[in-house]
């Protein structure tokens, strides 16, 4: 998937992946896509909740080799 910016939140624990995501999204313009990599298992549900409450669209959420990968489209 194409993306405009990548955020590596590996090794960070709650609530840092969400806070960093929010910050990274602020640097994008509407419609641009942010790729986030995280290792916090709680981030899977948290990213969904973040998207739902902020209106940003979670395009995909996947796990590979103990890492979680998200694509978030800025509102």
């Amino acid at each position: 998937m194409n993306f405009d910016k990548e955020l590596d939140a590996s090794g960070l624990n709650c609530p840092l992946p969400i806070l960093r995501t929010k910050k990274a999204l602020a640097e994008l313009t509407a419609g641009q896509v942010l790729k986030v990599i995280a290792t916090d298992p709680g981030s899977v549900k948290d990213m969904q909740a973040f998207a739902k409450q902020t209106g940003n669209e979670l395009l995909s959420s996947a796990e590979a080799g103990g890492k979680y990968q998200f694509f978030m489209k800025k509102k």
Partner: protein
Amino acid sequence: MSKKLAIIATKGTLDWAYPPFILASTAAALGYDVQVFCTFYGLQLLRKDTSGLKVSPLGNPGMPMKMPFGPKWFKDINWNIPNIVQASIPGYESLATTLMKMTIKNCGVATIDELRDLCVEAEVKFLACQMTVELFGFDHNQFIENVEFVGAASFFEFAGESDICLYI
């Protein structure tokens, strides 16, 4: 209009410093307006120097006492130290705090200063209870900038309209 979260922070230990800052920073990231009213021991959360925040395992049966270093079998041991022993060792709290801070770092959990900076950056508003500032003999310049020194009535102005109000 944004949702509002009002928090009353009353605890002044390292462990209890986390919930107000985690919830405030996360809510701010979700678009909430957040105010944290710090009173009594919660004032410690707003001091420039946070090294006074310590954790005490004494009389806290819910706290696992595990070592943050060494091989896995060693880290897995839960050191069940009787209260009477904990109470009689000088510097026990400082030692427990040092170990706790190592664990925090190992787990990728933010430090209190880091979380507080993120809150300030996200425009979380911190209120300090003026009455307890005087009661404890603190000085305004011991606190971080942008703290407002107010009374309970000022807190209710915001809390009365909040969607969520937490006492921590």
